[in-house]
């Protein structure tokens, strides 16, 4: 290579710059995927969520803001799902069982939200809840009332739902925690429900 000294210096500078860009673009070589980045960003700065009208398995209307003053665990599902949402259901069940019984409903609640507003009517939400042992009070299954509000809510959470080509959906499944101020404060892996529940219990 005929690179002279100037070329070497320039090459070094470009490499340094490149490392800098990679460093900041991956949060210091920790977040290589959008999902890790989303979780890290939420931890750094909790995010406010829009007031979206929800409807639970009994047809009751409510919103996320109704839970202010309590901790709220949120997961996104669709009831026809036979893969990851089953793990989500099982994970939530484990969270519920791990939490102190006296705090349930008073200091902390669980909410499964369906993003398939068109197909998931209250009846199918109810069936889903029963399958996983949700009581419908401390752990409710809900759908977004107006289909137009699905996209804004998912975007606020940073959840991306794409069709899986077989009539279902694939999405970045996780367990979300809303703080007492109603902000999204923490996102956890679905295969770590016990750790998630323990973190909640310790902040009660």
């Amino acid at each position, binding site marked *: 290579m005929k690179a002279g000294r100037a070329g070497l210096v320039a090459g070094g500078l470009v490499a340094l710059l490149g490392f800098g860009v990679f460093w900041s673009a991956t949060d210091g070589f920790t977040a290589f995927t959008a999902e890790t980045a989303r979780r890290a960003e939420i931890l750094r700065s909790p995010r406010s969520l829009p007031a979206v009208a929800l409807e639970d398995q009994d047809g009751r209307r409510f919103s996320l803001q109704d839970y202010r003053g309590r901790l709220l665990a949120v997961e996104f599902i669709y009831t026809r799902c036979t893969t990851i949402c089953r793990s989500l259901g099982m994970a939530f069940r484990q969270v519920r069982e791990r939490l102190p019984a006296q705090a349930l409903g008073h200091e902390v609640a669980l909410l499964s939200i369906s993003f398939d507003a068109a197909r998931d009517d209250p009846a199918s939400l109810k069936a889903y809840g029963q399958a996983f042992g949700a009581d419908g009070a401390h752990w409710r299954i809900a759908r977004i009332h107006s289909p137009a509000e699905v996209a804004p809510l998912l975007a606020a959470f940073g959840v991306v739902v794409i069709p899986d*080509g077989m009539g279902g959906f694939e999405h970045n499944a996780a367990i979300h925690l809303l703080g007492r101020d109603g902000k999204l404060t923490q996102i956890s892996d679905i295969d770590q429900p016990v750790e998630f529940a323990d973190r909640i219990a310790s902040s009660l």
Partner: protein
Amino acid sequence: MNLHARISLGACYLFLATPVARSALEAAMSTHMLLQIPLLAAAGVLLARLLPVARQDALLTACGGALPLVVLALFASSYWMLPRALDAALGDPLTEAAKFISLPLLVGLPLALAWRQLTAIGRGFVWTNFISMLAVLGWLYIAAPVRVCNNYLVDEQGSTGWLMVKLALLLFAGWLGTLFVGGNVAPVAVPASSRDDARQANPA
């Protein structure tokens, strides 16, 4: 002639940027990574080739020679191989614009300029490194324990990874193959009879 070529190049580039072409190429991870991104880089290569030779040389000197340009192309191209960057390009128009600008200008153009100055060793080094990095990247996508892109199905990352490995093998075989054909015998030492010359004019 040159003007004609420039207009065609511009038209192709603009076509790639149309929503139709974008959604077609970005619908699958494999076409996004292995078709759209290389095409954008190739546009940069063509752009460089369409510049007057004096202009190319001036740019090359101004940038400090081949080395910084190769390093620049290395970092810029690696950046768009990050799953996080792919997701960002799909969700954020600004990132998508950055992708459309940086791939031709920071990958294709610098490589094409550097290529003029690179010796056979430099070119071979770039090729062999690129090939082995492509194979390793393919493995990373195959072996990834999590879904790396929120916008693509989990099965796709495996198939895209395998495509990269296969492409690396194909490129390697192709590159080695080029060393077996063409070229001329240097006019030294060998007693050059006319019979020899006839043979050389007809390479195997």
